[in-house]
């Protein structure tokens, strides 16, 4: 279980997230919606533990352990994995090197090839990571790295933005595998926190909880399909007005 209690986060001296409370139960996938600049990426980066995101208040617990102060590598080793919205180019470091790093002890040429084929990136293994990658290639490469890492807490930042209609199915399958197929119920259960604007990935994951992040606050909580429908209809403003958990009632009133 991931639990976030009364979390406030500042970036470069400016508070971006205010008093966030969030709880993702084992085996659950939650969805984050919200307008540009609302703080979604900031929340994911904070959960992953990047030092630029300073926790000014509150705590983050993973399986009851306070991990608020752990650096990203230790969180990765605990089972956290993130796909970046805009990952950096690392010159001279090949895609295959990244996969080997993610696979750690499990690294082998066969496994690297298998993942690359799965992500339709077989020709990319010798390329420098993210160098000259198209938007969609970056998304596939990020998910491929996570599939190598096999995280238990999967943090995905807009995995389907800018992806064409053919590739969206591939991306959807990869996400599904990350969150469900490669996570056998009896063995270990994955948790997910996914950012989406389009909601396309809802077709591939079994998510019953969604939130709208607005101005650095989790403005409302509800069924992600319903939130998406509301947002499509009346925009984000409405969600801000609604009370936590009451989006469905409000939705009925508007109708």
């Amino acid at each position, binding site marked *: 279980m991931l639990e976030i209690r009364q979390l406030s986060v500042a970036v470069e001296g400016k508070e971006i997230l205010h008093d966030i409370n969030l709880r993702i139960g084992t085996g659950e996938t939650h969805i984050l919606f919200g307008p540009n600049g609302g703080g979604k990426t900031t929340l994911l980066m904070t959960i992953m533990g*990047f030092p630029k995101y300073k926790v000014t208040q509150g705590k983050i617990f993973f399986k009851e352990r306070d991990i608020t102060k752990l650096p*990203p*590598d230790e969180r990765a080793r605990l089972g956290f*994995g993130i796909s*970046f919205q805009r990952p*950096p180019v690392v010159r001279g470091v090949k895609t295959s*090197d990244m996969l080997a790093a*993610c696979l750690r002890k499990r690294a082998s040429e066969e496994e690297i090839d298998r993942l690359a084929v799965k992500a339709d990136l077989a020709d990319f293994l010798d390329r420098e990571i993210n160098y000259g990658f198209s938007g969609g290639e970056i998304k596939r490469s990020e998910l491929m790295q996570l599939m190598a890492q096999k995280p238990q807490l999967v943090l995905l930042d807009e995995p389907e933005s800018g992806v064409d209609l053919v590739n969206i199915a591939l991306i959807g399958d990869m996400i599904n595998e990350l969150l469900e197929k490669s996570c056998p119920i009896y063995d270990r259960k994955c948790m997910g926190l996914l950012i989406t604007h389009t909601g396309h990935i809802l077709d591939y994951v079994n998510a019953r909880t969604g939130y709208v992040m607005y101005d650095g606050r989790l403005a409302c909580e509800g069924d992600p399909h319903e939130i998406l429908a509301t947002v499509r209809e009346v925009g984000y403003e409405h969600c801000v007005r609604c009370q936590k958990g009451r989006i469905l009632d409000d939705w009925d009133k508007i109708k």
Partner: protein
Amino acid sequence: MTGTKSSKILKDKARASANKPAALGEDIDLKSYVSSAEEQPYQSDPAELPAKTKAQMLDAGVMLDDISQRSGTYIQMDNAPVHSSIKQEGIEVMAVSQALAKYDWMADYWWQAVAVDADKYTANVELNQHDGYFIRALPGYKTLFPVQACLYLAKAELAQHVHNIIIAEEGSELHIITGCTTASKRESGLHLGVSEFYIKKGARVTFTMIHSWNPEVAVRPRTAAVVEEDGLFLSNYLLMKPVRSLQMYPAAECVGENAIVRYNSILVAAAGSSLDVGSRAILNARGARTEIVSRAITTGGNITARGYIEGNAPEVKGHLECRGLILEDGGKIHAIPELKGNLAGIDLSHEAAVGKIAEEEVEYLMARGLSREEATATIVRGFLRVDIEGLPPLLSTELRRAVEASEKEVM
């Protein structure tokens, strides 16, 4: 040396320049070095050299225990050639003194690419000539394995004066790996090395040079290459071990159409090392091309990384890439890429970047589970990885191994 008259002219020129400071780099006081050393015995089997010496040479890419993967070997200790042998037909490897005695045409090559009066270092090589290597590929012959040469500084405080001549005759292919190293890892010394390359029509030469000096040694190589029509000169330089002061600015002139010159340099400066290293390509014939790539890392030393491309003929093309990484405060990197074009329709470009490792990149790798140290090491390794097109696989592997062997000291 070569005909009394021309030799007298060279000597006169050299004498006139014996104290002429070089255009670049710290001025080395030649008087603080001795110029003679006891002769080292000739070794018919280089595997018989002491194990420690062989290990040092191996650090510089010269393997003596098994020379089956070499088409020739030349070893010089201090002033004297101690071994030279060939393993393949069509290749000549000998002491340059021997070549001067054997071939009366040597005057056509001797100080023809490098000017004897360029500075006091070239002048003093002429005045105190100690020998050097002569490597030649006969017309049409292609080496399967590289020729290896080692210049070894055994005696402390010695100034070693070396003059090398490399000739690739028409249509030949020659791969050379040269290692320079010292017996002592702390005594001072000076290495003055002149190398002149002549790459004839359609010939291909790859030259891989590994330097492994010590923190008290000063080094002034003086290298030039002349590349004829359709010729290729590919030069790789690796310097990852400490050295006190090293300055070199080799130049290659493309005199024939479609000649190609490529330079790759990997430089690491530890605290106390001062490097001023660059590469020059002068494109004087139609369609000539060049690519100059350098990677410089400082862990506390100073590096001036230069590059110069000059285009003087139609349809020439050149690119210069100069990247520097500062791993520790106190180190400095000064990148000076220069382009000079004299005609319309030439295509010269450069990119230069100097900086620290980007924190964002380190954190990206940390998010994949690498520790901060592992992430940094991975990025440094990536930075040092230069995929060299046109280098035989064997040499690529050896070069990569040499880089990896020194990486640990960098990190």
